[in-house]
């Protein structure tokens, strides 16, 4: 089964990062399977962050593509990830 690879780019002292992490964790818990979350310290992964186009934190990268920067509403995040998850599963089928 194909997994949605989520990378959450955070940074030290970033108050909004914790908020987005909570939202992403909640989404992953609800999805139960097919979602893998990796929290990435942007300072430690500067090269990769720059290559992905990350300009600020928090930033969300899904399947190797930057999809949002900042803190979305829970509904917006759910819709965005549902769409990606559907696409991933669609590719598998």
């Amino acid at each position, binding site marked *: 089964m194909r997994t949605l690879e989520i990378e959450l780019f955070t*940074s*030290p*002292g*970033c*108050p*909004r990062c914790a908020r987005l992490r909570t939202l992403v964790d909640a989404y992953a818990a609800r999805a139960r399977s097919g979602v893998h*979350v*990796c*929290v*990435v*310290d*942007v*300072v*430690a*992964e*500067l*090269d*990769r*962050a*720059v*290559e992905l186009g*990350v*300009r*600020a*934190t928090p930033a969300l990268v899904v399947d190797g593509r930057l999809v949002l920067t900042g803190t979305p509403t829970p509904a917006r995040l759910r819709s965005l990830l549902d769409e990606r998850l559907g696409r991933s599963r669609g590719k598998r089928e």
Partner: protein
Amino acid sequence: MSERAARPLPIGAVTRLLGLSADTLRYYEKIGLLPRVGRTASGLRRYGARDLSRLRFIRRAQTMNFTLAEIGALLRFREDPSGARPRVRELTARKFSEVERRLGELEHLRDELRLLLNLCAASRDGCPVIEGIEEGGDGSRRRPKP
């Protein structure tokens, strides 16, 4: 007033304008990087727009670590692109590739610094810029979450 229409400048004005010493300007002329510069009736050098353009090119090329010999070849190509010999064209192509590569590196550096500045501006607990420069991107702090 545009540089093209400006009056030729004395050597002192050029040193101030371009940050090159008078000795350097005279040396460039002596070794042929700069064609013989115009003179006043009393023999004082006067630099025209074309001279200033060449001097700016030389200065830019030097910041890219080109040798004076290479710069001479590049200037010949600049003067006469169609009549340049294959060796000069080949050198120019090689230098063009180097410039492209360095430009890519500079763009990456610019994006990295912009990201760090953004992080710094948004940080509540201080500025991670110094930490970023010290640590680099070795991936040692990547934390997979089960």
